[in-house]
C-alpha cells in the first residue's frame, strides 16, 4: 500500500512498520495524517495476520534520534470541545487496541524519545526493547500539559510495570532512561542502537518468560482491592502535597485509574477518553500548553539578526568568586567550558570553589552524578589571581561587587587581556548596562547577563542589551544560556530589567499592606493560595532584605513615587535583619536554613492595630501593580512581547504555571475589569502607586488583550 508518513515492509513474513518515514524534522510526532495512516496500516497488517502472510510485527523509527515524541501538541490545541477531545482519544485507542489484539508477536524497537502517544503505542506491543543511548527516554509526560494520557497509557502502564511504578511515571510526568526502564520492567531488553532491529527479530521468536516469583509476589501484593486503595490514597496525598491542589490533571488521572481499576478494557478506555476530553479543553491545560509553546519558542534565538555564523562560546571565565561567581563557574564547568575563575586572592577563590563543590556534592549525594564526574568537573575550574590565561577564553562573565566605578575599571583592564572576539557579560542585577558599556573600547562585545540566586536552581537568565551591542554578542549569549540548560529572555536595558522591575511593586505593595495592619500571615497565605511558590515575606528573606532594599532604592530613583519603598525597610536592615542568610528576616531560620516561624522583633515594628482584609482583595492589591508595571515595560519596548514577560516571571520567580503567566492571567480576567480596579485603588489607596499605565488604558480602549497587542 502507498504510504507517506509510515513505512510498511514485509520480509520473511515479518511486517516492519517504520515511523518518521519521509520525515525531514528531527522529531517524529503523531499528527493527524500519521494517525490516519497508522489506522489503515494496522488494519492492513491485521488482514495479513489473518491470512498467515505475517507472523510477527516490528515497530521502529526511521529517524536516528527519535522513536515517537508523542502526539502533536498543535493537534491537541485545536480541540475545541470535550466531545472532540474524547472522540480524538477514542480514535487513537482503537488503533492501539488493534495492535494489542494482533495474534502474533509484536515488538517495539525504541531508540530516542518514546513519549506520550509514542509510549502508549509501545505499550500496546507485547515486547518493548530499547537502545541504551543517552537520547533514549521513555515516559508519559501528558500531566505536564494538564492532560491525561489518552491512548490507553493509564490502562496499560500499570499492567506492565505495576501500579506504584505506573503512578510515579504518570502523575509526575517524569521521563526515565533505558537503564531505569529495564529495572522497572517497562522494557524487556536494552541493546546498542545498531542491533535493535536484529534483536527485535530474535524477540519475535522468543516465548516471553513467565513472571518471576518476585514479580508474582509483587503483583499479588499490589493487585488486590485493599492494597490498591492504600496505594491510591498515598498517591493522592503526595499529589496534593506537591501541587497544593492547584492542578486538576493529576487528580483526574487518579480518579480515572482508581475507579477504572476493576473495569474491563472497553469501559476503562471510555472513561480515559472522557477524562482526556474534559482536561484538554480546560483552562489549566490550555495555560500549560501555552507555556509549552513559550518554552519551545525560547529554544530559538529571535533577537536582532547577525550576518555572522554564531556558535555557543566554548571556553569560559568568571570574574569574582562570590556566591554568584562560584555558581556561574559551576554552571560553566558543568557544560565542559573549563572555566577560569579569577579573584584577587586565594581566600576569595576558595569561596567560589566551595560554592561549586557544594552543588556537585549534592548531586553526588542524590546519585545524579558520580564522584568521578564531580572530580573531573570541579577540577576543570581553574582558579587564578591573574589574567594570564584569558587569551583562550570566548566568554567572560563578571560577577564582582555591584559598584559601577570598580566594574568600569575592571572592564577597561580586562579588555587588554582577552582576544578580540571574546564576549564579556556582566551579572549585574541593579546597575545600568548602558553605563558599564562606556568602559569598553569595543562595547559591541558587551551585554548584561543576569543570573538569579542560586544559579543552579534558578532557570531564568536575562540577557540585557544596550544601544551599542552587536547582534552576534546577544546571539552567542543566548546560545550559551541554552547550552547551559537555562531559559534565556532577551530584554533592553532598564532599571531592574524585567523580573526585578515587576517584582518590586509586588513586594512593595505587600509591605504597604502590613503597614495598613493586615496580618503578615494573611498576606503570605493569600499569595500562596494564588499559587506563588512562597509568600512575599519569605521571598524577601530569600533574596536578602538588604539586597531587596538596595534594588528597591535604585528602582525608586529611576521610576519615582510609584515604587516608593515603605519607610520601615531601611530600619529593618539597620537592625540587622537580613533575611535567610543571617537566619532572621520576616521569619526566623535554623542553621539548616529551615523556617521556624515569624520573627517577633520585626512583627513588633508593624502597627499593633490589625485589620481584616479579604483574601481576594489582598491578591488584587499585590498582583495588579505587577500587571500595571509589566504593561509599562511593554510600552517602553524593553521586551518585545507579552510572552517574554510571562516566560520571565514563570522561570524567574515561579509565577504559577497553571495560570499561564502574569499577562495571560490578566487577559483571561479581562483587562477592562483590571483597569477599573486599578483606577479604584488609585482613588482610594494611593494615586501614585496605582497610576494606571497608558499602555493598559489604550489596550482597554481598543478592546485588545496583551497577547493581541
Amino acid at each position, binding site marked *: 500500500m502507498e504510504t507517506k508518513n509510515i513505512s510498511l515492509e514485509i520480509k520473511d513474513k515479518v511486517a516492519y512498520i517504520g515511523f518518521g518515514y519521509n520525515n525531514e524534522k528531527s522529531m517524529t510526532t503523531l499528527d493527524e495524517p500519521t494517525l490516519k495512516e497508522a489506522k489503515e496500516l494496522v488494519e492492513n497488517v491485521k488482514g495479513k495476520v489473518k491470512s498467515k502472510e505475517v507472523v510477527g510485527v516490528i515497530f521502529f523509527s526511521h529517524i536516528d534520534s527519535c522513536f515517537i515524541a508523542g502526539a502533536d501538541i498543535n493537534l491537541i490545541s485545536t480541540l475545541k470541545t470535550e466531545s472532540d477531545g474524547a472522540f480524538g482519544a477514542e480514535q487513537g485507542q482503537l488503533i492501539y487496541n488493534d495492535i494489542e489484539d494482533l495474534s502474533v508477536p509484536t515488538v517495539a524497537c525504541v531508540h530516542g524519545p518514546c513519549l506520550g502517544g509514542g509510549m502508549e503505542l509501545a505499550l500496546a506491543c507485547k515486547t518493548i526493547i530499547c537502545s541504551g543511548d543517552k537520547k533514549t527516554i521513555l515516559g508519559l509526560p501528558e500531566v505536564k500539559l494538564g492532560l491525561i494520557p489518552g491512548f490507553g497509557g493509564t490502562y496499560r502502564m500499570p499492567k506492565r510495570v505495576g501500579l506504584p511504578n505506573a503512578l510515579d511515571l504518570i502523575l509526575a510526568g517524569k521521563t526515565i532512561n533505558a537503564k531505569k526502564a529495564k529495572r522497572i520492567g517497562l522494557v524487556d531488553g536494552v541493546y546498542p542502537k545498531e542491533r535493535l532491529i536484529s534483536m527485535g527479530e530474535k524477540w519475535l521468536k522468543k516465548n516471553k518468560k513467565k513472571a518471576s516469583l518476585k514479580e508474582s509476589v509483587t503483583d499479588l501484593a499490589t493487585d488486590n482491592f485493599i492494597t490498591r486503595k492504600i496505594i491510591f490514597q498515598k498517591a493522592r496525598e503526595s499529589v496534593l502535597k506537591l501541587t497544593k491542589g492547584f492542578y486538576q490533571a493529576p487528580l483526574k488521572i487518579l480518579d480515572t485509574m482508581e475507579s477504572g481499576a476493576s473495569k474491563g478494557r472497553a469501559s476503562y478506555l471510555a472513561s480515559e477518553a472522557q477524562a482526556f476530553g474534559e482536561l484538554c479543553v480546560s483552562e489549566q491545560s490550555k495555560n500549560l500548553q501555552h507555556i509549552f509553546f513559550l518554552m519551545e519558542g525560547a529554544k530559538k534565538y529571535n533577537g536582532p539578526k547577525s550576518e555572522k555564523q554564531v556558535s555557543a562560546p566554548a571556553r569560559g571565565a568568571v570574574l569574582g568568586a562570590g556566591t554568584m561567581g562560584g555558581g556561574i563557574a559551576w554552571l560553566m564547568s558543568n557544560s565542559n567550558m*573549563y572555566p577560569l575563575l579569577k579573584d584577587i586572592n586565594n581566600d576569595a577563590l576558595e569561596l567560589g570553589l566551595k560554592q561549586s563543590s557544594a552543588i556537585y556534592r549534592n548531586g553526588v549525594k542524590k546519585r545524579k552524578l558520580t564522584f568521578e564526574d564531580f572530580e573531573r568537573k570541579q577540577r576543570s575550574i581553574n582558579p587564578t589571581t591573574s589574567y594570564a590565561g*584569558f587569551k583562550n577564553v570566548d566568554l567572560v562573565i563578571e560577577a564582582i561587587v555591584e559598584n559601577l566605578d570598580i566594574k568600569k575599571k575592571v572592564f577597561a583592564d580586562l579588555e587588554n587581556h582577552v582576544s578580540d572576539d571574546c564576549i564579556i557579560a556582566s551579572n549585574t542585577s541593579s546597575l545600568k548596562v548602558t553605563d558599564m558599556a562606556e568602559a569598553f573600547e569595543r562595547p559591541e562585545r558587551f551585554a548584561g547577563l543576569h543570573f538569579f540566586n542560586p544559579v543552579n536552581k534558578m532557570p531564568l537568565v536575562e540577557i540585557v542589551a544596550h544601544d551599542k551591542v552587536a547582534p552576534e554578542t546577544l546571539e552567542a549569549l543566548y546560545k550559551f544560556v541554552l547550552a547551559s540548560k537555562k531559559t534565556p529572555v532577551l530584554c533592553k536595558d532598564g532599571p531592574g530589567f524585567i523580573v526585578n522591575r515587576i517584582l518590586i511593586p509586588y513586594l512593595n505593595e505587600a509591605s504597604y499592606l502590613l503597614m495598613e495592619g493586615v496580618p503578615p500571615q494573611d498576606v503570605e497565605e493569600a499569595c500562596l493560595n494564588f499559587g506563588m511558590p512562597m509568600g512575599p515575606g519569605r521571598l524577601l528573606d530569600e533574596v536578602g532584605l538588604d539586597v531587596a532594599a538596595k534594588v528597591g532604592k535604585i528602582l525608586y530613583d529611576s521610576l519615582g513615587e510609584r515604587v516608593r519603598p515603605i519607610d520601615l525597610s531601611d530600619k529593618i536592615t539597620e537592625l540587622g535583619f537580613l533575611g535567610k542568610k543571617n537566619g532572621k528576616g520576616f521569619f526566623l531560620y535554623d542553621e539548616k536554613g529551615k523556617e521556624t516561624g515569624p520573627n517577633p522583633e520585626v512583627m513588633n515594628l508593624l502597627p499593633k492595630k490589625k485589620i481584616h482584609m479579604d483574601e481576594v482583595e489582598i491578591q488584587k492589591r499585590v498582583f495588579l501593580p505587577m500587571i500595571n508595571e509589566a504593561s509599562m515595560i511593554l510600552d517602553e519596548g524593553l521586551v518585545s512581547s507579552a510572552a517574554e514577560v510571562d516566560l520571565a516571571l514563570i522561570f524567574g520567580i515561579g509565577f504559577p504555571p497553571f495560570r499561564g503567566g502574569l499577562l495571560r492571567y490578566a487577559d483571561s480576567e479581562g483587562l477592562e475589569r483590571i483597569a477599573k480596579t486599578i483606577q479604584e485603588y488609585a482613588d482610594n489607596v494611593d494615586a501614585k502607586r496605582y497610576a494606571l499605565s497608558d499602555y493598559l488604558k489604550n489596550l482597554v480602549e481598543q478592546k485588545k488583550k496583551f497577547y493581541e497587542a
Partner: protein
Amino acid sequence: MSLREVYLVDGRRTPQAKAGTALKDVGVPYLGSYLLRTILDEQGIENDVVDEVIFGNTGAPPKYPNIGRVIGLMAGLDKRTSGYTVHRNCASGMEALAQGYLKIASGRSDLIFAGGIESMSQMPLIYSKEMTDLFVNIMKAKSMGEKMKAISAFRPPFLSPIIAIEQGLTDPFCGMNMGLTAEVLAREFNISREEQDTFANRSHNLAIKALKEGKWDEEILSLAFGEKMEKLLTKDVGPRENSTIEGLGKMRPYFEKESGTVTVGNSCPITDGGSVFLMASEEAVKKHNLKPMARMVDYHFHGLEPERMGMGPLLASDGVFKRTGLSLGQMDVVEINEAFAAQVLSVRKGFAEKAVADRFGIDTVHGEIAEENFNPNGGGIALGHPVGSSGCRIVVTLAHELKRRKAKYGLASLCIGGGQGGATIIENLMN
C-alpha cells in the same frame, strides 16, 4: 642526522606534599592535567595543536595504567592528541623530557607536553603471593566441594599485605633498600652523620628562604585539595621552618638501626606531586608565537652498580658534559636531586676528588660547585621526592632559577633506583 633545537616553552609544577597529607585525595591524573591546561591558556594555544603527551610515573595506579593519556584527556586536549607513560624509576620525569627531546630534535614532533607525576599516598597495598594463589584456586574450582577445599587452604598470615611502595624502594637485583645504598656511600666515602644533618638542615633553610622571597610563586600552580576540592594548596608541605642541626641529630638511623648514619631526617620523604614542560621545535615557536624560557641542550643516562645507585649523577653528568662539550665550570646553577644527604655529598666528592672519580672510572675531575650555585632553593630533603615527577621537577626549578639570575647554563641530575643516573643541561633564554 642533524638534530633540531628543542625549546622548553614553560615549565610548572604542583606544590609537593608529603604522602598522606594535603594531596592524598587528589585523583592521580589531576596532579598533572591542570598544569597542562594553564600552560596552554597562558601561551594562548588551541587544544588541538599539541602532538603528544608523555608522562613519567612509577606507581602506575591500577585505574590509570597509561596515565599520560588520561592526563591529556583530563586537561581538555583534543582526543586526537596521543599520550603515553614512561618509567625509569626516579628519573621517569626526566625520561619523559628525554623522549620529548628526541622526538622534537629528530623532526617527528613539534609540540610535546613532557612531565612526571606521582601520588605516593595512593600506592596500593598488594595481597601476598599465597593469598593471590588462593583467589586463583577458588576461581578455578568448578564444584562447591572444590571451592571449599580451596578456601580451606586459607591461613590468616596470607592477609598481611605487601606495601607496594616498600617493595618498589628495594632493589630487586641486590636486594638492598635505597636507604641502605646510601649507607654504603656514607661508609665508603666517609660522610659523617653530622655532615649529612648539616646538609639536610641547609635544604630546609633554603627552601623556606625561597618561599619567603616568593621564589616559588611562578613555578608552583595552586591546586584544589581535600575531599571537597574547595581548598587551595599554594605551597609545598615539607620544608620546616624550625629545622635545626641539633634536632636532626636526635633522630635514630632508620635503615641500619645501630651503626648507621642515614635517618628519615637526612633522607627525602615520600611525596605527592607533578610537574611538566611544554616542549617545542623552532617551527612551533614561530608558528604559535611562543616565548620559550629555555633550550634543552642535551641529556644523558648512565648505569652503575645498583648498590651504589646514589652516585648515578656523577656518571650521568660526566656523560652529558662529554656529549655536549660543556663543563661543570660553565654551569651557573646545578640541581642535584636530594634522595639522601649522604648520596648528594658523595656525588659532590666525586666531582671534586680524583680518587672518588677514579673509583667510578671517570677520567675527569670536574671540580667544586660553588655553594650558592648548588641546589640554591633546597631540594628533595625539604621539598620531597615524588618519584615519577622529580626528574622533571628539578629541571622546572632549575629553569626558573636561571631565569631569575639571568644566567646561562644549568645542570639537573638525579640518581635512579636500580643503579643509574640521569642528567640534563638547559640554556636559559629569558634575559
